[in-house]
């Protein structure tokens, strides 16, 4: 450690060397990131285009024989009602992806400002907001989701918003922690010295810096929300209308269907796995890409 410090001290007086080509390579997002993003773009495009794609409707019963193995006509086989699993996986992605997206958007819109305000002003506001976050985190999240969904209704809107409420606390805590760090930095103090108002400092100085770690968390959080929809489906409380990945896995997981038509469960599991993997990986890459401490020592 001491040696490194010494060389740095010398470097201050020396000419600033050109960054090594290796360092430049290190700061790339990497091919894996772009593969992950491509998968997300592909699955989103399929979800958006589902009505115009040449696939069966999601509820066409008896499109093929029951529980048939994958074939050219039915890429992922058919389920116990003879519905095409491939078509239903694409239709299901519409619900699963929009639940994930709306939940995280809601979590960021509420948790982000709360966290920034708490971290910027500290004091009593911070104490109250932090306590609310802590209480939300102490609650068994799936139980809370179940209770709300059960007493309201099982529409897409309710399921997405419930998962959004659950996203508030983690996102808010991250925003708060980052705001506390940035609020002490020179550029914020400089803004304060030239007489910028609090609201302007929060929006123009702190928000752009806090948004990056929040973006990374949002990618990870979207994966969590997609999984949570699946968990809700398993407990019988996911979105009522239409196919979702969670509901498809549930339908495919009874012993008879597992034995005769393994594809019914495994196809949506595979698609969900790849989506969660892509979101996790992309989130992880974004985080370490912008985490300056990790690369520049």
């Amino acid at each position, binding site marked *: 450690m001491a040696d490194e410090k010494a060389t740095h001290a010398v470097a201050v007086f020396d000419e600033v060397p050109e960054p090594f080509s290796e360092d430049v390579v290190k700061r790339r997002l990497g091919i894996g990131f772009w593969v992950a993003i491509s998968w997300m773009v592909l699955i989103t495009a399929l979800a958006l285009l589902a009505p115009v794609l040449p696939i069966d409707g999601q509820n066409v019963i008896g499109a093929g024989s029951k529980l048939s193995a994958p074939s050219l006509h039915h890429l992922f086989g058919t389920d116990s009602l003879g519905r095409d699993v491939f078509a239903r996986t694409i239709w299901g992605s519409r619900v699963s992806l929009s639940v994930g997206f709306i939940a995280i958007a809601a979590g960021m819109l509420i948790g982000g400002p709360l966290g920034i305000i708490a971290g910027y002003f500290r004091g009593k506001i911070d104490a109250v907001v932090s*306590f609310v976050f*802590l*209480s939300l985190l*102490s*609650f*068994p*999240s*799936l*139980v809370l989701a*179940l*209770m*709300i969904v*059960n*007493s*309201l209704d099982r529409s897409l809107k309710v399921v997405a918003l419930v998962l959004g409420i659950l996203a508030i606390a983690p996102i808010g805590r991250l925003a708060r922690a980052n705001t506390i760090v940035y609020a002490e930095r020179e550029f914020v103090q400089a803004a304060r010295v030239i007489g910028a108002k609090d609201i302007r400092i929060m929006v123009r100085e702190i928000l752009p810096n806090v948004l990056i770690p929040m973006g990374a968390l949002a990618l990870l959080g979207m*994966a969590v929300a997609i*999984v949570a929809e*699946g*968990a809700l489906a*398993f*407990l*019988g*409380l996911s979105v009522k209308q239409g196919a979702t990945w*969670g509901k498809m*896995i549930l339908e*495919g*997981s009874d*012993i008879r269907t*597992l*034995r005769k038509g*393994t594809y019914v*469960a*495994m196809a949506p*599991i595979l698609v*969900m*796995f790849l989506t*969660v*993997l892509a979101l*996790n*990986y992309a989130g992880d890459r974004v985080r370490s890409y912008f985490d300056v401490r990790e690369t520049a020592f």
Partner: protein
Amino acid sequence: MRFVLQRVGQLVMVLFAVTVITFASVNVLGDPLTNILGPLARVDCTDVYAGIKPDTSTRGGTSEGDCAIIAETRKEFNLDSPLPVRYARWVGDISTGDFGTSFQNQLPVSTVLKNKLPVTLRLVGIGLFFSLALSIPWALLSAYRAERTFDNFSTVASFGLLAIPNFAMGVILLYLFAVRWSFFPTRYEPAGIYNQLKSLFLPGLTLALPLAATYQRLLRTDLITTLQEDFVHMARAKGMPAHTIMTRHALRPSMFSVITVFGINTGALLGGTLVIERIFSIPGLGTEIVTAIVRDDTPVVLGIVVIIVTGFVVVNLFVDLMYSFLDPRVRRG
């Protein structure tokens, strides 16, 4: 001591907030009277008492009128008092061990908890055991030759494991080891300790695999740091065999962050078994609370939430205290 009191105070506040939220939401979002009596609760008693409508009982064979039954039920379940009074009374009852009576089958909630909690605790225990039994050797092997083939492979593997949702993992394990090869039963078999352990093997593994991946990542990082310490070089210079250095010297000082996360996860696990219990049809707390929520069985929901949140809070307090015991800097900070 001040630190301990502060943490205890904070956690009591959390417990208070969570129970208030739960209590209020189950009582406001759903009508407890309807949940107990069904359609009978809709009889308009103001009209009956005013003599506008006749008080005829829809329950065959009872001489009592509908409104008498409603009044009796209201009294029995304390439904007439305002919400804060009912909350205070409920907390008072709980402190004496009385969790109320289930709306559905009139059993005391404490009996329900006594029957279901051990099953869930056993499942969580097996899951925790597996998670440590898998992650410690795995981390030792990958840290021993860091950044080599095995380590790189296990980095990919643990990333993959973390991306499999627990219900998907459950379905995959159920398919492979219970349906395709019938090593394990597909349903929970309560008879005898051997059958129970056999039925809990796959659910325990489902619970353990993502945890094992998390612990392996943490332990591997800490081990790699520890292996650069002087005392490890010293041991190696003495000619000590590598496995002795890994297990006897390097493992213990590297366990710090794993212990912390282990504690936090353990508290959360009690509420995290819902889906797994469902897939493997295990009659535990998770299955019970889902049924209770769907049937609006308020006392059971509340009782289980209290148990889960208390478990979470107590385990977290314990971890915090452990932490400050192991690292005095936390106490002063």
